């Protein structure tokens, strides 16, 4: 055996868990993203008095696969004057950044690729922020005005809102006192409460900023359909476009995971330390079983034989999952599996709730204008986040040095921050009123540069 081969073998032997986990992420995330798209379309249809995709598979369950096939075999168009290499590489960057950042996320206590990275949460944020290069370079390489304007907008937007999001995360990190993902969740278990209740303002800021960061409505200006056609994606088609799309949805998962980890208690079930609430442990299994039962109920109503079979299949899968979730609870020797399995369940459930919130907002709200977006970011969110960091810091000092009650201290800081928020909003309204009373003079060049923010 040659030494190289030996080294490779040794490498694989040491790192096989991580390798397998990485492969799982790369393989599963696109599929999951596809199904998030389907869920989004279904939810949107439901809220808009429509049915949504119904043709491919029962209730359109196979639609993502059909879409993927369509996108794969679609003609791949590269504009004539595009910068071919950059055009080619940009979507890949976008996707890679999103997938890489998932490496440090812990989907439950058992599943994490980069286990003991010292800067866990920072890694997630930092690497996922590299996705911006995909957007910028793609917009630039397309050599189209719409694309470049979309790219410029998204750069300005991402940079602005990343600041706010980062500051919001700092509040949470102050409470946790560590950057390691597992330690953050452990801290919440130790506190006995999710950080969202201790720092609600920070959570709110993070929600808003993360919507903006993932370019979702009402902050979807870079791809604002009605203004910039499709923003930086205007010239993309086929699989490259799909990569952008996947990157965007993967990013949604990432921000959802970050919010869940830091604010929503990670993989902890509700009331993790309360004994008599232990019956909640049965919830995952019951929930999945209920979904399965509903599928069985629907199976009889399918119009086509194939769809009935398919529905049965889905139901069966649900039952199997329910069984997997239930068995370790009941069988004593398998008890050690409980945290891993149930943790993953709760974690994914929380991410789903977070993404659901995104979708709900998207279907409800109109879109901000670019200058309004920038004002919201720079005049309200960032000052508010700074004040919030200060306030949380003060509260922690009060608690640790002067022995205040934790809840009292946190309540105080929240009140202070909210008062600041009100003040900022008032200020903003005044400014807007002043700006509108002096309506934009048609001929004079405005002093305000939209990008100056």
């Amino acid at each position, binding site marked *: 055996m040659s030494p190289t081969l030996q*080294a490779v073998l040794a*490498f694989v032997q040491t790192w096989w868990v991580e390798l397998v986990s990485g492969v799982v992420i790369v393989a599963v995330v696109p599929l999951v993203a596809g199904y998030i798209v389907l869920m989004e379309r279904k939810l949107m249809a439901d809220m808009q008095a429509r049915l949504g995709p119904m043709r491919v598979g029962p209730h359109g369950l196979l639609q993502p696969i059909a879409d993927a096939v369509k996108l794969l075999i679609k003609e791949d168009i590269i504009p004539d004057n595009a*910068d071919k290499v*950059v055009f080619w*590489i940009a979507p890949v960057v976008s996707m890679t950044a999103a997938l890489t950042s998932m490496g440090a996320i812990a989907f439950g206590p058992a599943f994490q690729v980069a286990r003991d*990275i*010292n*800067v866990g949460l*920072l*890694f997630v*944020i*930092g*690497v996922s*922020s*590299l996705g*911006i*290069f995909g957007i*910028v*370079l793609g*917009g*630039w390489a397309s050599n189209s005005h719409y694309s*470049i304007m979309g*790219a*410029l907008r998204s*750069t*300005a937007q*991402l*940079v602005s809102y*990343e600041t706010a999001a980062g500051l919001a995360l700092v509040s949470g990190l102050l409470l946790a006192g560590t*950057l390691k993902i597992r330690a953050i969740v452990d801290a919440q278990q130790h506190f006995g409460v999710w950080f969202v209740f201790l720092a609600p303002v920070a959570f709110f800021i993070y929600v808003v900023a993360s919507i903006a960061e993932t370019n979702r409505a009402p902050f979807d200006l870079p791809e604002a359909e009605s203004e910039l056609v499709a923003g930086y994606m205007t010239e993309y088609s086929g699989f490259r476009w799909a990569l952008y799309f996947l990157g965007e949805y993967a990013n949604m998962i990432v921000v959802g995971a970050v919010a869940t980890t830091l604010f929503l208690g990670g993989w902890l079930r509700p009331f993790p330390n309360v004994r008599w609430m232990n019956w909640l442990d049965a919830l995952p299994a019951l929930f999945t079983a209920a979904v399965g039962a509903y599928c069985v109920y629907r199976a009889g109503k399918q119009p086509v034989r194939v769809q009935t079979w398919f529905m049965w299949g889905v139901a069966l899968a649900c039952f199997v999952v329910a069984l997997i979730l239930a068995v370790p609870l009941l069988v004593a020797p398998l008890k050690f599996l409980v945290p891993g399995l149930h943790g993953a369940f709760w974690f994914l459930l929380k991410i789903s709730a977070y993404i659901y919130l995104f979708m709900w907002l998207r279907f409800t709200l109109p879109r901000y204008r670019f200058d309004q977006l920038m004002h919201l970011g720079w005049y309200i969110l960032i000052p508010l986040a700074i004040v919030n960091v200060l306030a949380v810091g003060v509260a922690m000092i009060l608690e640790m040095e002067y022995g205040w009650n934790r809840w009292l201290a946190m309540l105080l800081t929240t009140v202070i921050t909210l008062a600041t928020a009100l003040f900022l909003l008032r200020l903003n309204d005044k400014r807007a009123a002043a700006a509108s009373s002096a309506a934009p003079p048609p001929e004079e*060049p405005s*002093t305000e*540069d939209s*990008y*100056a923010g």
Partner: protein
Amino acid sequence: MLDKVIFFFFAGVAILSAGLMVTRRNAIHSAVFLITTLLATAGIFLQLRAEFIFIAQIILYVGGIMVLFVFVIMLVRLDVALHQIQFSRQKWVALLVTLALALEVGVMLWSSRKVPGQGFLLPNAVPAGKLPPNTEALAGRLFDAYLLPFEIASVLLLVAMVGAVVMAKKRT
């Protein structure tokens, strides 16, 4: 072995793309190659177990400064500049000077190999496993011994920010 592979991979990528960065005609391409270099350097930092510097490099350098660069390059669309001469007249002199410098440093490094006891080319470090947790150690040092420089750096950043805003603002 693994260390070696990682180092040579990242070092190779860094040097190659640095060279490309200096020679590309298109500023955007230069920026892309600089990003690659910086990421490769970040990899080197990780290999040196400097995790915080690694992530700071990615967030600040790549995610912050380079975004700014790309942004500015896009704002000043350099279509015209593409067709102009890329290098200034003194390029041969410059190359000569840098070559001389390279020679000098190279000889210095090579000769230091033989300095007894120091062993510049030999590993003489704490094993990776015994290092203190990087972020904590760094934070401790930063906010203890280097608190004043830290504050000064923040003031510097503030000044730079104000200056940039003032300069880039449109005059009316």
